[in-house]
Structures are given as structure tokens and as C-alpha cells.
């Protein structure tokens, strides 16, 4: 291992260099524990979507790392993120993945909580000196900050820190783009989540999400079978770019390539005629010119640090469980008021990342092979130099590379390092 800074080099100076990262970052249990504290329990993490809890008293189970959480909407419509742990003896208070209830009752001793986390009561209360003695003292753990942007709900275990809008930075406009694909300006996540457990470190997934170098190889079979034009987006000839959006966020901006063809719905592998109802509603809502531009440019392909990945038609949430294991939850994007396209969004999503989906199976195989590899002793480093000498700065000050460059990965690691070095 080589320290790159003479004198006072931090642990992470020694493990993260501009164009390579040390393999122990993916395997070291102590580093994972530090990541939980400095990243997962400190920054904003995606926990769900407002459309998953549309009615008062709706709730869904969610998670941040190994923390089991409940996203609830109280009677007044306010969103809360609660830790799924009874304040009495630590039992889980909520078993179902979703439901509608104004309160939660622990199965162990019947302690009952409002859906904002307040303790309502406990059986045989004379043992605690009667009603009202401990209600203010014991409640469910409540995440101090919950906020949403375009319906995407984020929460933080830290009571202080940058606002959600500051955290999202330039990635916010990608959520705007997604919402803009709906004739009513709202994307929703109402199709239900699939869970895939993967024997790999969470960072391998994040790095892969905007890695445009792998699709032609890893997904070659599905592109060949379906005749998809997606593979060509990630080649030396492509005009698409990889962009470091700052804050650990990155994107594959495919718009230049789609603009070149100028065909509405090409990004979705179809034509306007085949999703006539959707296209008509878009033209009606936004006018011909704007609707056509949106339908040509398509959906974003963006990785929002640390766990929200939007891949055009589907959304992933990454949940790390240990240095060696994580869960990917995935769901199809649904566009409010979109008519016929929503069913197609679900079926395409199932085909790519469902239980028998080809894209996710391809990628997961690579993650697990990688994890196996990084456990080996030599060579110690992983290389992320691709495109560093042709990287440039765009008109908005963001670093961009070609479609296959590792610009996004370098952006991720720079941000990761700054968080891990913070006290």
C-alpha cells in the first residue's frame, strides 16, 4: 500500500487515489462500520415515495442500512420515518410490509404507539405508577429530518446538516426530468418493490450504475436477443456523456444521442404511435414542441448518492447489510395520468430487473464475481483511470467524460473520501 501524501496522510488518503482505490474498501468490516456512521446515518438517504403512502395512516416498511424503518403518514398527512423497535424491550413493532393504521402495537407486551412515534399507552400501567408517567420519555425512535423532492422521500438520522435540496444539488433537476415525463408532472412508485439480495459490497453497485463501459459486454446477450439500440449508446462512437454531478451523484446523459435521431420514444424502444394515448396526453399537457422535446430526450439515468438509482424506467434503492452483502430493491416508474404506457413500464421493468429479468441477473453476477475478486491478495488496487486524460468541464462546470469513461466513479470516490475523513 502506498501513501500518496507525505507527512500527515489520513487512512483514506492511503486507500483512495485519484485513479485507483484499494480493494480493502470493499471487504473491511471496520470500514463498513465507519461508513454506516459517516455516510448512512449522517447524510440524506432515499427511503420511499409519497405515492407509497397516499392516504392518512398509510405506512410501508423501509430501511437505511441495517436499520429497519417505517415510513408513515399520520392523520394530518405529515410524513414520519420511525425506527421499527419497541422502546420497552426492543421488539419489532411492525411486521407487515405495508398497511393502514393510526397506531402500532408491539406483539411482546402490547405497548402501543401513534404513527408519529409517540407512546400511546402500555398494559397494566400501575407497574409504571399509572397512566401518563412515561409517555413523554419513551417512544419509537424518530428520524429527526424527513423531506421530499418530487415525491421522493429522504430521511436522515442526523438532526443537523445540509438541506435536502443542498444534498441533491444538480441531481434535483434529474428528478424534475423524470416527473416531467408525466402529463400531470408527477412520477410515482406504486408498482410494488422487488427485493434482490446480493453477495457484494454496496459500492460496487453504486459504481456500476453509471458505468457505461460494461453494458456491451455484460448485457450483450439481452441487447442481441431484443434487438435493442441501447448497446450503441455506450460505445466510442456515442455522443452520450458521463457526468460527475458533484456530491457523489453522477449520470449518463444520453440526450445528445437521442437528440441526434430526433425520434419521440426511441429512448423507450418504441414509437409514439405505439403509445398513442400517452403521447396524446403529453402533447395536450405541454404543447407539441415541449412534449416532443421531452419524449425525444427521455428519462434520466442518474445515481443519487448514496442509494437512489434511477435507470430510465425503473428505480433502485440500495441497502447495505454488511461489507459483503446488500439488498437491491427495485420498482417500475409509473407516470401519473400517462394511460397506456404505465403497463408497458411495468412489463419492461419485470423483463429487465424482475425475478427472471436479464439485466439485473447479468449485473448481479458481475457484482458477486467482483466481490470474490477483491478478497484476493494481489493486485491490491482497482483501477478507475478510464478517460481521465480526456475528461473536460461542461458549460455548467461539471466534469464530463465520454459515454464509457469512469468519470462518475471518480466523482463518487472524491465525495466518499470527504465524508469518511470528516470527524
Amino acid at each position, binding site marked *: 500500500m502506498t501513501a500518496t501524501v507525505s507527512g500527515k496522510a489520513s487512512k483514506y488518503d492511503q486507500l483512495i487515489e485519484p485513479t485507483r482505490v484499494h480493494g480493502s474498501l470493499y471487504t473491511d468490516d471496520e470500514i463498513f462500520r465507519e461508513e454506516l456512521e459517516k455516510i448512512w446515518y449522517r447524510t440524506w438517504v432515499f427511503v420511499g415515495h409519497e405515492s*407509497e*403512502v*397516499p*392516504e*392518512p*395512516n*398509510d*405506512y*410501508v416498511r423501509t430501511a437505511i442500512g441495517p436499520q429497519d424503518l417505517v415510513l408513515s403518514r399520520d392523520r394530518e398527512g405529515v410524513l414520519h420515518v420511525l425506527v421499527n423497535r419497541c422502546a420497552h424491550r426492543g421488539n419489532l413493532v411492525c411486521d*407487515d410490509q*405495508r*398497511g*393502514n*393504521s*393510526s*397506531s402500532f*402495537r408491539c406483539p411482546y407486551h402490547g405497548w*402501543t404507539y401513534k404513527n408519529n412515534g409517540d407512546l400511546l399507552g402500555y398494559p397494566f400501567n400501575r407497574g409504571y405508577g399509572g397512566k401518563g408517567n412515561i409517555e413523554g420519555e419513551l417512544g419509537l425512535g424518530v428520524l429527526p429530518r424527513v423531506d421530499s423532492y418530487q415525491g421522493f422521500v429522504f430521511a436522515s438520522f442526523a438532526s443537523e446538516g445540509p438541506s435536502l435540496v443542498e444534498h441533491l444539488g444538480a441531481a434535483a433537476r434529474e428528478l424534475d426530468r423524470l416527473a416531467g415525463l408525466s402529463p400531470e408532472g408527477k412520477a410515482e412508485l406504486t408498482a410494488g418493490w422487488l427485493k434482490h439480495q446480493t453477495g457484494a459490497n454496496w459500492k460496487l453497485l453504486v459504481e456500476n450504475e453509471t458505468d457505461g463501459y460494461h453494458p456491451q459486454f455484460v448485457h450483450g446477450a439481452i441487447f442481441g436477443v431484443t434487438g435493442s439500440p441501447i448497446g450503441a449508446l455506450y460505445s466510442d462512437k456515442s455522443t452520450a456523456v458521463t457526468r460527475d454531478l458533484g456530491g457523489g451523484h453522477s449520470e449518463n446523459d444520453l440526450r445528445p444521442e437521442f437528440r441526434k435521431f430526433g425520434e419521440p420514444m426511441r429512448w423507450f424502444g418504441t414509437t409514439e404511435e405505439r403509445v398513442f394515448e400517452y403521447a396524446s396526453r403529453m402533447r395536450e399537457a405541454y404543447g407539441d414542441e415541449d412534449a416532443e422535446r421531452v419524449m425525444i430526450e427521455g428519462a434520466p439515468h442518474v445515481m443519487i448518492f448514496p442509494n437512489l438509482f434511477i435507470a430510465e424506467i425503473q428505480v433502485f434503492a440500495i441497502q447495505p447489510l454488511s461489507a459483503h452483502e446488500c439488498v437491491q430493491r427495485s420498482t417500475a416508474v409509473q407516470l401519473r395520468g400517462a394511460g397506456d404506457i404505465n403497463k408497458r413500464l411495468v412489463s419492461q421493468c419485470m423483463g429487465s430487473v424482475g425475478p427472471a429479468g436479464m439485466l439485473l441477473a447479468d449485473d448481479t453476477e458481475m457484482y458477486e464475481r467482483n466481490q470474490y475478486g477483491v478478497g484476493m491478495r494481489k493486485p491490491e488496487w482497482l483501477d478507475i483511470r478510464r478517460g481521465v486524460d480526456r475528461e473536460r468541464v461542461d458549460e455548467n462546470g461539471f466534469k464530463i467524460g465520454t459515454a464509457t469513461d469512469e468519470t462518475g466513479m471518480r466523482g463518487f470516490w472524491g465525495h466518499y473520501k470527504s465524508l469518511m475523513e470528516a470527524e
Partner: protein
Amino acid sequence: MAPYRPPSDQSREIGIVESEFASVRISINDDGNGPRLRLEDLRGDKVRYLDALELETLVWLRDEHLSALLDPSADRWRE
């Protein structure tokens, strides 16, 4: 008696419980992430949803508790 209004889209109507004093339509509503009882006061134009835990609580409510709730100044006509 108030004119008939169908319950919301996702409600399964059970029926109307009515006396000379009150008229309430009962249905099971599926708009949310789980079923809820939907109670509609057909004379007062107010709707209340009750989830399973709240209903179970009502079942176990002592009669004197329930009587206290029936006091017209308890909630509805407080001021």
C-alpha cells in the same frame, strides 16, 4: 333522510345502520395500503375512517366510556 351518495371509488358498501336518531353508512374502504372501515354520517355529512386496531379498541371499550363519548358536548358540540 339525506339523498343516497355512493361511497368513494374503492369502497365496498356493507349497508346503512339507521335509527330515528342517526343514519350511518358503513363500508370497507381500500384506497389506502390496507382496508379501513368507512363510516359516513348521512345526516351530518362527515366521514370517519377506522383501522383494525381502532375497531378492536371500540369492541373492548367499557360501556361507561362509550356513554361518556355520547355526551353531546364531548367532541361534536363542544363550544
